[in-house]
């Protein structure tokens, strides 16, 4: 395994009560990559992300970020270190305006000027959010809310961005748009760990992929190879 990976999960086991959601998971994300984690419902994809961002504590194993052990640290400490998560189901602050939502994303930062610059940058990526800046976030459309969730996570200036099912419940056209932006964000230097059920889209933009099944990694490799893998094709791509 790569020694200087940005993020490394080392034999992680996570349980909800007596039920093990993750069993002995190891994976690594190198700087500059898009790595995707695909799998069916309940495979443990979201659990993996939550463990990385500190919302859950692993029973066994360690999480390393930039070579430091971050397992069991509090979420706000992990955000400060440079991991930012766009939670599943678009956890937006519905009664706050779009702009306030973005500013909350920069919560752990102090420099007002650079926050302002990043806000402009986000508006540049998603122009629709600029139009909606004064609107209550709860009144945005599903796609706009997803854009807002990603933007809010970006406002923390993460080294590593965790995206939890950005395509969930969105129209195919919007999904395409979002994935294009994810690629752009990556090209501008943010490493991305993407959790998706939409395996086809995810594999097309990712460099590396892991396939999760009931809490275990059953397949891993280059995204391109997995796209052509007959098992993956049958199980996740519907071919």
């Amino acid at each position, binding site marked *: 395994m790569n020694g200087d990976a940005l993020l490394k999960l080392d034999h992680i086991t996570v349980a909800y009560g007596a039920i093990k959601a993750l069993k002995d998971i190891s994976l690594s994300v190198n700087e500059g990559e898009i790595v995707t984690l695909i799998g069916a419902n309940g495979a443990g994809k979201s659990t993996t992300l939550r463990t990385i961002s500190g919302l859950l504590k692993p029973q066994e194993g360690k999480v390393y970020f930039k070579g430091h052990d971050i397992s069991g640290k509090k979420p706000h400490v992990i*955000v400060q270190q440079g991991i*930012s998560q766009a939670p599943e189901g678009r956890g937006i*602050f519905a009664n*706050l305006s779009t702009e306030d939502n973005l500013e*909350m994303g920069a*919560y752990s930062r102090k420099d007002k000027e650079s926050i302002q610059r990043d806000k402009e940058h986000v508006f540049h990526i998603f122009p629709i959010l600029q139009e909606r800046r004064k609107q209550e976030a709860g009144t945005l459309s599903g796609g706009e809310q997803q854009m807002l969730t990603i933007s809010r996570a970006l406002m923390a200036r993460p080294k590593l961005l965790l995206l939890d099912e950005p395509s969930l419940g969105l129209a195919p056209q919007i999904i395409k748009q979002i994935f294009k932006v994810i690629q752009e964000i990556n090209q501008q230097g943010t490493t991305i760990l993407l959790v998706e059920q939409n395996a086809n889209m995810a594999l097309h933009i990712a460099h590396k992929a892991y396939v999760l099944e009931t809490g275990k990694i059953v397949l891993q490799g280059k995204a391109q190879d997995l796209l052509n893998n007959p098992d993956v094709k049958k199980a996740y791509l519907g071919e």
Partner: protein
Amino acid sequence: MKKQILTFLIISILLFLGNFIVPAMMNPYLFMILIYCGINIIMGVSLNIINGITGQFSIGHAGFMAVGGYVSAAISFYVLMPLLSLFPSDNTILSLFFQNALFVASLLLGGLGAALFGYLVGLPSLHLRGDYLGIVTLGFGEIIRVIILNLDFIGGARGFTGIPAWSNFFWIYFFAVAVVMVSFRLLGSSHGRALLSIREDEIAAESIGIPITRYKVKAFVLSSFFAGIAGGLFAHFIGYLNPSSFTFIKSFEAIIIVVLGGMGSISGAIVAAVITTILPEALRPLQEFTRTDFRMVIYPLLLLTLMLTRPQGLFGNKELSDVLPFLKRKKSP
């Protein structure tokens, strides 16, 4: 900031003048209602910090009020009164000043006592969500009441008599204004934003790096502190405290104020506090008219109608400045 201090000073001076004028302007009954309005404003606005702004359902506000009331009453009775009696009470300005300074100290200590309890209760229980927190805080309120009931040196079940009546119009509204201004400042600050985000979505708040338990405890402590002040003001106004004043019904009164005003709206809490204080009294003549006490039938019916027609509360999520834009302060760049 400077402008706000100035506003606060001007209001304080007006209140100070009002202290001589207002009681003379009305009969003692109306004055009493006015005083209760002030205390209920503190109670409602302080509970709004934890229930409305932070979205944590606490049903133990009366408990914190009781702690504040009894602590400050005990300090005044056992420490400050003997201290004052050492000096000749000649009613000069100096001795009045001295007495009021001691009163404020006693109130603040009462508030700190309540805040300490808020911390002790909040630390373990704010990990809980929704109804579970409600049950813990409800239980806490009752525990406090039962403990007081069994403490003989503060009167026990007989009630605590002989508390000096140092509270007056000025102090009650002074603290009401202070609580309101602190709440508004809080809402506009990054702390306030963090609290709002916890109300909106805890997981999202955590994922953007807000230490949610720490913030919940802070909000809880602040809210308890103000509730304690309200208790102290109440104790020193009536001159008598009884544990039965602080049952869970009192907590529910505070919750009614917050819900009626609109969760999170400070203006709403103020208006609702005034309404819920005045309405039961305004309905009193009805009793003479019908010869039966319909008051407690009509009052809940009015509340019910209001909540059915406006479930988001009087102000919803808005402030007075959202409704009347000219009140809005210009955002400092």
